[in-house]
Every structure is written in C-alpha cells, then in structure tokens.
C-alpha cells in the first residue's frame, strides 16, 4: 500500500466514523422522542395530503400541463396580456 493509499484509507475511515456518529445522533434522537412522534405523525399526514393528494389532483401547474415548451407558454401569457384570450 502506497503512502497516498494509506492517507486516503485513513480519510475514508474517518469519514465513515463521522457519518456513523451523525446517523447514531439522529437514530437516538428519534428513538427517544415522546411528543415528537405525534408531531412527526402530523407532519407525515400533512405531507401526504399536500404533496400527493392536493398537488397531484387539485393543483397541477397550469402552464406545465397545457403547454409543452416555454415558447408556447410565453405565447399564451402574451395572448392574455394583449387581451386576445377573453381576459
């Protein structure tokens, strides 16, 4: 093993240790939560409701859905601004 490989290997080991420590920090934090579990539950329900139900079914991006490129989108908005589209 060359000196460079030894240095790289040491850096890798140190990095893995740091990642492990961070992982354990979060793992213990989440495990020891009491009220936090209820709050995370509310956050999870909210995220599913917002990003899955609301965003997918009720809030499509109007210009993304109806036009395939920026030129068409610009054209559409310009038509609105120049009062050609019933605005």
């Amino acid at each position, binding site marked *: 093993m060359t000196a460079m490989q030894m240095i790289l290997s040491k850096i890798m080991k140190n990095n893995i240790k740091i990642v492990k420590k961070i992982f354990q920090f979060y793992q213990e934090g989440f495990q020891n939560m009491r009220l936090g579990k209820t709050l995370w539950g509310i956050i999870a329900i909210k995220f599913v409701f917002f990003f899955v139900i609301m965003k997918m079914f009720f809030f499509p991006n*109007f210009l993304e859905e109806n036009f395939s490129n*920026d030129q068409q989108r610009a054209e559409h908005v310009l038509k609105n601004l120049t009062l050609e589209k019933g605005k």
Partner: protein
Amino acid sequence: MEDTLLTDWSRAQFALTALYHWLFVPLTLGLSFIIAIMETIYVKTGNVVWKEITKFWMTLFAINFAIGLATGIIMEFEFGTNWSNYSWIVGDIFGAPLAIEGLMAFFMESTFFAVMFFGWDKVSKRMHLLSTWLVAIGSNLSALWILIANGWMQHPVGMEFNPDTARFEMSNFWDVLFNSTGYSKFLHTIGSGYVMGSLFVVGISAWYLLKNKDVIKAKKSIVVGATFGLITSIFLIMTGDESAHEVALHQPTKLAAMEGLYDGHKRAGIVAVGQLNSEKKIGDDKEEFTWSFEIPYALSFLGYHNTDAFVLGMNDMVYGNKEKDIESAKSQIEKGKIAISALKSYKEAKKSGDAVKATDSLKVFREHEKYFGYGYLKDEKDIVPPVALTFYSFHLMVGLGSWFFMLFFLILYFAMVNKLDSKKMLLRAALWSIPLGYLAGELGWIVAEVGRQPWAIEGMLPVGMATSQVSTTAVQTTFWLFAILFTALLIAEIRIMTKQIKIGMEGH
C-alpha cells in the same frame, strides 16, 4: 372580459391560506429568539432552572413549528395553478430569492433544529446554544427572502419587461435585494413576530401565576418575555414608521385608504379614532367621517417625516392634481391601453417578419410601459382599494400594538417591584392578549395586501390579469378543502399545546 367570480375566489383562497399560514409563522420568528435568550442565561449562569425553562418553551416552539411546517407551500401550489399568468411574468424575479429561501430554510433550520432538540447532553453547552441561535437566525433569514419578493410586488424595481417572453427580467439583482420596501416590510414583519412571541410567553406565564403553578419558572419567563416584548415593541413602532414612509413614497393610494383621506392637504393629521362615513364616495362632497378624533400634523410627519408635507388623498390619485404633478387615473388608463395595443402590434409584426413595424411598436410600448397595468382597468375609481377594510384594519392594528407596549411595560414594572402575583386583572389581560397578538398580525397583512388592491404588481399587473383560466368550481372546492384542513391543523395545535402547558414546566 375578466372573470370576476374566478378572480374573487382565487383571491379569497390565497387570502385564506396566507392568513392561516401567518398563524404559525410569527411564533416561530419570535419564540426562537426568546428561547435562545433563555438558553444563553442558562449557559452563562449554569442554573438548571433556566435549562428546564428553555426546554419547556422549546417544546411549545416545536409544536408550533411542526404544525405550521409546509403550510406556506400551499401558496406555491396556488401560484402554479390559479395564478399562472402572474407566476410566468414574475418567474425570473422570484426564482432567485425563493430558491435561496428554500436552501437556507432546509440547511440551516433542519440541521441545527436537530441539534437543538436531540443534542442536549450530546454536544457541548456552547455548541447547543450556537444551534439554538442559528435556528432563530435561520428562521428569520427565511422570512427575509419571502419579504423581498413581497416588497418587490409592492414596489417593483431592478427589472425590465421582455415583450418576447412576457416576463419581467431582472436587470439588477442588487436593486431587488436592497429594495427599501422589502427591507421595511421585513423588519416590521419580524418585529411583529417578536412581539407575538413575547405575548405568548407573557400570556402563558401569566396563566401559571394565576394557577399558582410553576411560579418561579413562570416569573423568570415573564421577565424575559416582557423585556423582549418591550424592546421589540419599540422596534415595531420604529419599523412601522418606516413602513408608512415607504407606503407614502411608493403607494400613496394605500396610505390615503389607511387614513380615509379623500382630499389631500398640507399638515395632514392622523385620525386616532373615528368612524368612516359609509355613504362617502370618491369625488363627492360628503364628509369623510361621521365622527373622529384627529392628531394634528401626524400624518404628514408619519408619511414624509415633515409636519408641513402635503399628503395625497384618494381624489388626487383618481382625478389628478396638477399642482402636485399627479396624473389622473383616466389619463394613465388611456396610456396603458396604448401600451397594450403597442405590445399586440409588436407581437403581430414579429410574427409576420415586419421588422420596421416591430421596432416602431416596441418604441411606443416602451414610451408607455410604466402605465401598462392601468390599461386593464375599466374605471378610474378602480385604483382605490377597499377603504373601510384598510382603514379599520390599520387603526385596530395600531391600537393593539399600543396596548401590547403598555402591557409589557406594566408586567415588567410589577415584576420588578415584586407585585405581579397580586395583579390578577393584569395577568388575565396578558393571557387574553395572546389571541389579540395574532389578530394584530393578521390585520397588518390585511392592510398590506388589501391596501394595494387592485394590483398584484403595483402599477404593472392588476390581480384580475394574474389569474389562470381554470374552473371557478375547482377553486371553490379547494378553498373549502383548505378551510377544513387548516382549521383541523389549528385545532390540533391548540389541543397539543394546551395539553403540554397543563402538564407544567417540568420534564420536557
């Protein structure tokens, strides 16, 4: 023709989500700093009582943060669906601040939030304290980017309209970043958050004192809350003054509506209390108020920092004022229509390859560009926002702000002379001031947003032109869905928080 029903429902939906979102934000802004101050006292003194106090308020902070989290994202959904014209037009301007806000919120808040909650006894005291301060600073910096975006809508700067892409394109990032309206709004808004946080701490602590529970911790909390509240109330008054000055300079119609001022004049006073004459209309000779009590010179001073200054009234803005070089709305509407027609002509010329006509049309458009938004208005009186809602919201907000200042002063005074326990009325008033704090914050936003109607972007784009061609029924459906969802979240917040408060200040 503009679909006014669709516009009104889209407007109502946005107002609903923004108002609900604002129920969660101010407490995050204010309480985060109060917690940081409490923890600093703990680290400085080593007194574990302060650690328990910090942990208690941190728990309530976490409840508010978790329930309020991502409620603002709904507004971004609405931009894409209901306000697609607006989103497209401002995309280039808003992209940068909102992206910075997203990154900052994610990295600063989420990283240090974890250390703040999971890091007790795992990281050093100073590292933990640093994390708490960084959560507070990060939350407040997130608000900065949002309010820079909002400030730009109130006073658009640093951009140029591109007639080929139908977008306002940023011509000077620094003008957008250092827009004076954005900063005055930011400072006043975070100031209101600090006062809200203080009211919350003072009010809940007052409840403990009334119940004779956790008395020592409640007294320590109330002193920190009232001190922070008193200092930030002064800050709020000062930033409110600067906000009014900005409004006077860039949105004079809003200032006139805030004060119910129809005919402008020099040495204008502020109506401290009064009742608007509901029969008064733009351009008529009827009295503005049925009764009022006025503070002389105050409006001239507030608006222009000069007691002698002329303050424009709504009639000046609608019919013009030659002496003050104010162009009538009618004239601006006519010029706006020329701008729209020139834009159309430019577009057609570009399509047909007529370069000469395109150049001529663009020249006409540029000459009339600053009136562009006025071309969509039907009537000259459309430039006036709803006067009663703006006026009463403003006055009630100012009245409540004055009460909060007095409350913090009295609480602090009686705490210092050690007579707070016996002041039951004051403690009850402190408790009931918590909802009043929320009300004041919402009223502030009503003044800011209703007061700038009919504009989505001041002078450039009226709200009616900002909407998408979506079905009104779809907007109505989602309006009620949001009303139910946010009410459920609010009930959840109140229930969880009340439960934690009833448990007491220990064991968090």
